[in-house]
Every structure is written in C-alpha cells, then in structure tokens.
C-alpha cells in the first residue's frame, strides 16, 4: 500500500484527480479513464482498511463504488473538494454493503470522516468474487446490447444503432439505464 504523505502531497493529488474528472465530465474519455483508474487504487486502500475481516469482498465493493461514481458523476460540483464527494459515495456504498450483509460488527475501523480517501492507494487488485459479466448478460437486450457494443466493443453510438436497429437516443438511454440497473442488481434489487 502506498501512502501519500503530507498536506502538499494530498493537495497535489486532489487537484490532479479533480482536473482529470472535470476533463472527463466535459467529454474527454481518456482523461476520465485515467481518473477512474487512479481513483480505484484509492478506493481499494480505503475499503481494504475498513473491511480487514472481509478481504474477499473488497474488490466487489471497489467495483460497486466505481459504478456508483460513474452513475452519479453529474452530482459532482466543481466548487466542492473531490475527496469529500468520493468519500461520501464510498462510505455510503460501504454502509449499504454492511447493512446488506448484516455485517456491521465486522467493521474493524469506524467509518469516520477523519481519514482522507486520497491519503492512501493500493494498486494490487484481487479477483472480484462477483462477475459483472454475468450480471450484464442478464440485463434486457435494450440495455445489454448498447452496453456491449458501445462500452465493451467500443463502437460508436451510430454504429451501434445501425447494428441493433435501435435509435441513437435509445442507445444512450439504454447504456444509462443499464448501468443503473447493474448497480441495482448488485444491491440485490431488480
């Protein structure tokens, strides 16, 4: 695990990730990918520390938090610290997870606000236990095909529309709703 020391280091980290996200929000997919990739290491360290007794669940929760951050990215306000926003989402997902698994007592560190989510990073991913591919395959076609073609195969919305016969707006809606449905299915709700 890598520690990011000192206020200056944290501040630099914060402003770097923030500018990556803002570029992503204005449509730069490459910067957005760099943001998510770097952020996943911080989420992993944050969650691993708090789920020390459930190490096998960490990667699932990292993935769940990433999907949540993606689905809720329109709620980030550029005037607000990025770490506060990320941390609130990660904490919400952690508490929700513990509630689902009735494992509140497994929490070995209290979910406090004192530790900054960006203060540590962990790039060693373990295998996720839940395979998102299985959940994706289970989505209805109007959501599954847009995600498959535009997000996994990397086709453009127009190409995907031609391939599936859906309208372009139906493709965009399908991706959006599909990722929301994916998050709901992870939580065990249809």
């Amino acid at each position, binding site marked *: 695990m890598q520690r990011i020391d000192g206020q200056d280091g944290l501040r630099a980290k914060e402003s770097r990730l923030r500018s990556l996200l803002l570029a992503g*929000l204005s449509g730069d997919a490459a910067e957005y*990918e760099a943001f998510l990739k770097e952020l996943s290491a911080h989420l992993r360290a944050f969650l691993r520390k708090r789920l020390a007794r459930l190490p096998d669940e960490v990667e699932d929760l990292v993935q769940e938090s990433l999907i949540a951050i993606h689905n809720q990215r329109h709620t980030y306000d550029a005037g607000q610290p990025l770490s506060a926003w990320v941390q609130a989402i990660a904490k919400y997902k952690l508490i929700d997870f513990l509630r689902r698994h009735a494992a509140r007592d497994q929490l070995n560190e209290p979910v406090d606000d004192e530790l900054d989510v960006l203060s540590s990073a962990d790039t060693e991913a373990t295998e*996720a236990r839940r395979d998102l591919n299985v959940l994706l395959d289970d989505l209805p076609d109007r959501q599954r095909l847009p995600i498959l073609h535009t997000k996994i195969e990397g086709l453009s919305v127009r190409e995907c529309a031609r391939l599936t016969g859906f309208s372009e707006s139906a493709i965009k809606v399908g991706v959006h709703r599909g990722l929301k449905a994916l998050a709901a299915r992870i939580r065990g709700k249809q």
Partner: protein
Amino acid sequence: MKTDELVTLLATGATAVETHVAVRRYSVAVASGLIGAALLMLSLLKVRADLAEAAMLPLFWLKIGFVASLMAAALFATVRLSRPGARTGRLPVAMATPVVLMWAVAAVVLYVAEPATRAGLFLGQTWQSCPLLIALLSAPALVTLIWATKGLAPTRPRLAGFAAGLLSGGIAALVYSLHCPEIEAPFVGFWYLLGMLIPAGAGAWLGESLLSW
C-alpha cells in the same frame, strides 16, 4: 470482470455530462409543485375574500415570512443533502431559526394577551383542518421533489426525504396562506408547522425506500 476492465468499460464512449442538473431538476419540481398546490387549492378551497385587506396587516406578512424562510431553508437542505459530500453543518440552524423566531413572537403575543383570549389565539377557528389541508396541498410537490432528488445522489436518504417533504410542506403552506383566515403568530407557529411536518415525515419514510441507490 477485472476492475481495470470495468474502468475501461465505464470510460469508453463517455460523453460530456450535463452540469447544473440539480438546479434544473429542483426548478422543475418546485414550479410544478407550486402549480399543483395552487390548482388543488382553487378547486377544493378558495382564496380568502378579504385577501387584499389581510395583505395590509403586518401579521399576514409575518406568516408569509415564516413560511417562506422555512421553505428557503428546506430548499437549501434538500439541495445539499442530494449531493454526496456537501457540507450540512449549517442545516439544523437554518431550519430551526424561523421556528425559534416565530415561537418567540408567539410567546410574547400569548404573554401580553388577556388570559381569556389565549386559547383563541392558539386554536383560531380552523385548527382542526389547517394541518391536514396543508398536508393535502403538499402532495403534488412531495411527488415532484422526491422525483428530483431521486435523480441525484442523497447519501442520507431518510434525511433527504425529510428535507424534500418539508419543502413540499412549505410550498403547500405558502399557497394555503392565501386561503387561510388565520394570521395570529401562536396559530401559525404551531398548526402551520405541524402541517409542514406531516409531508416531512412522509418524505423521510419514502426516502428510506425510494431514494437509496
């Protein structure tokens, strides 16, 4: 699926995201909630006949000010609570201030009043219907505000539902005050507040199930 693959999946084809979503959603929700409450009021009740005269009285404007400031505090709280990591430290003070001020006025009014008139100042003519009518008028706004909040990301769904419910109650109370014959501070400070707290409670209850994500 590995996490790196998920990251690539999420980022692939990601296009620009609309900012100011919250402003747009809440503007639509508040406006349609106001229209809904006004339509309900005009069809079920009616505007008080002496509204023009009542509008000359300071107490009328105290009532409007109380409702409007509580509404503003609830709007502030709803917006804050729908965004992860937004500061919420000032929300209790913002929401309590109008209530405390109104109760202070009410206490003075009751204190200086003749003992025989105190019950009348508190109960008015309409205490039995006032909270229920406010709750009824709040229904459209409660629906639109829960919808607006659902499109955002409240990390405390019950509290966000409470704030949204209180805001719908404030919208309803504002519309209701055009019908209501009461203007005395002890009445407004209690029965209006109760009327606003009914949808707030409903919002908290709905928030738990509808606003989690």
